[in-house]
């Protein structure tokens, strides 16, 4: 029964391969891509349901018993992240149909997108650190090509920085893996957790903590934490908006997922030190990200800086290290990915309507497209965290968890940063929707209507609808997150699921 855990990896793979078979027929690729994304969403929801009912599930690939073979493990956190991948995959697959130009679609855009989804799902599911490295590379390779596809000058320059820093991160990850294997003789996460917990002495703990810093650096670059985030605002705004939306929703979140995974399961020996450091980094990430955003005048760059700022919040939940803190982190990751991708998709519609992303040159969209303004406002206020939006509940539970542990500084920072987030969202609102449009050459992209341009609008409506669903359905939604938080704080459950109870 739990063999079906491989489905979230196999479905994108099959979709991508099918797309490649129809490489000369982009029209067929488009439909294969959308159907594949739908299948992924259905399977991911089914996985979530299955894990919710049955608890943590593990499957040993090739029937090699853990810790010798590769294990796929899904706990609730993994399942929630896979649902996120399914949701964003479907939204972006539909949005890409018209918004990505025919040339890019003819050169393998769709298969690349599904390879990316495969890498992301693999990273969420694997229970083996080296396997995680391999999934990272699958995901990175697809993202490199997606970023560079099209070959505009900005894309090339952005891609150089993105590729260099991500390869650096991979090299650090690889070095850390080598040292960890030399130390523990295993790379299975559950086995590592068990070994480190059973053989804890002061000196071995010191070595493990030193190693954990290498992992923090490697995952930190991918998650774009302070001070390792410079590749992100230099590259994320260069590809088509659909690609940016997918990246913003999933790629940095894989880094956050990996950080949460290793720092709740493996590296918990000296959490006074490591988790305090995480809190400091979380605070600095929030502040630098939001200050960077406030200074921007290009909509996509502004939103890119917000990705960085919002990464700080789940890290804060991890640093607080209580079931409530981690539950809040899980809920926050889901919420922020939805809100962020929605904002990017809306920026794409604005770019199409006005032909520019420059805040100075935009204006008057409220009068022209009031419903677009309403959609933007929903996502923007959710990102800033105004009640009764999902962002409010996410931040409220983080603040509660922080106050419960007496971490007043980080709570104060997180609230201050929320205000600045609101400020920069209002800045976009004022410049794009509210102010009188500046007089310039007319690049009017024409009217945009739901009947004709449903591929542009349906994904936005879908994501906004989901944001509202987890806002007003906060009870059940947070119950899932709370259960995920409890599972993360009880590594024994994870170890038992992978290695069996008898050991």
């Amino acid at each position, binding site marked *: 029964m739990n063999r079906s855990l491989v489905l979230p990896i196999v479905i994108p793979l099959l979709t991508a391969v099918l797309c490649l078979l129809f490489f000369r027929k982009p029209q067929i690729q488009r439909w294969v891509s959308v159907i594949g994304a739908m299948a992924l969403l259905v399977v991911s929801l089914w996985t979530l349901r299955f894990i919710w009912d049955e608890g943590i599930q593990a499957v040993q690939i090739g029937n090699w018993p853990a810790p010798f073979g590769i294990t796929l493990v899904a706990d609730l956190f993994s399942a929630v992240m896979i649902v996120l991948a399914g949701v964003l995959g479907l939204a972006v697959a539909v949005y890409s149909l018209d918004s990505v130009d025919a040339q890019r679609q003819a050169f393998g855009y769709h298969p690349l997108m599904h390879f990316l989804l495969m890498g992301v799902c693999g990273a969420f599911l694997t229970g083996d650190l080296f396997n995680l490295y391999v999934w990272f590379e699958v995901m990175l390779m697809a993202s*490199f090509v997606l970023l560079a596809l099209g070959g505009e000058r900005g894309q090339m320059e952005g891609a*150089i920085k993105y590729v260099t820093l991500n*390869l650096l991160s991979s*090299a650090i990850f690889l070095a850390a893996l080598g040292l960890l294997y030399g130390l523990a003789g295993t790379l299975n996460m559950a086995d590592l957790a068990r070994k480190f917990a059973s053989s804890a002495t002061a000196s071995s703990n010191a070595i493990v903590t030193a190693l954990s810093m290498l992992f923090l650096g490697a995952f930190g670059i991918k998650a774009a934490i302070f001070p390792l985030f410079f590749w992100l605002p230099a590259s994320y705004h260069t590809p088509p908006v659909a690609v940016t939306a997918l990246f913003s929703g999933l790629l940095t979140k894989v880094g956050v997922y990996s950080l949460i995974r290793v720092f709740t399961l493996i590296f918990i020996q000296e959490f006074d030190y490591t988790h305090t450091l995480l809190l400091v980094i979380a605070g600095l990430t929030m502040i630098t990200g939001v200050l960077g955003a406030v200074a921007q005048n290009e909509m996509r760059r502004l939103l890119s800086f917000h990705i960085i700022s919002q990464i700080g919040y789940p890290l804060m939940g991890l640093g607080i290290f209580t079931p409530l803190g981690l539950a809040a982190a899980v809920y926050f990751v889901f919420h922020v990915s939805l809100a962020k991708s929605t904002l990017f998709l809306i920026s794409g519609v604005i770019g199409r309507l006005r032909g520019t992303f420059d805040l100075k040159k935009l204006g008057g969209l409220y009068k022209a497209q009031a419903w677009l303004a309403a959609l933007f406002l929903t996502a923007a206020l959710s990102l800033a965290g105004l009640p009764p939006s999902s962002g409010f509940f996410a931040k409220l539970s983080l603040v509660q968890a922080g106050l419960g542990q007496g971490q007043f500084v980080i709570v104060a920072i997180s609230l201050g940063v929320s205000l600045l987030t609101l400020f920069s969202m209002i800045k976009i609102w004022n410049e794009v929707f509210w102010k009188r449009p500046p007089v310039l050459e007319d690049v009017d992209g024409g009217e945009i209507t739901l009947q004709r341009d449903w591929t542009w609008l349906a994904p936005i409506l879908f994501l906004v609808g989901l944001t509202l669903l987890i806002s007003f359905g906060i009870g059940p939604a947070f119950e899932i997150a709370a259960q995920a938080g409890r599972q993360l704080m009880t590594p024994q459950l994870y170890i038992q699921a992978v290695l069996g109870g008898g050991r």
Partner: protein
Amino acid sequence: MEVVLPFVIGSLYAMAIYMLLRRSLVKLLIGLGLLSHASNLLIFTAAGLTRSKAPVIALTADQLQPPHADPLPQALILTAIVISFGVTAFALALAYRAYRSADTDDLDQMKSTDA
């Protein structure tokens, strides 16, 4: 070997980082290549070196007799080499395209996206 390899790895890392910090695009790529070599050697060394003892079960025994070399790190390195081969090929192509579109190989000139 245990004495020599750390120095080799250390110098490879030093060279790699020096090359990464250069302004030339080609030297950046050389730096990335060296970096992955250094990491591979690090895995090889950190997992422990056992000379001339292949992990093969003798005909007369029914399980592996220690001491023997650990085959897993070599499998890991093999995977990592294949991955870094693909990535390097992509990075070279990307660098060429970037050079063509920006008309320079000086990284300091490539900051139009940072404005």
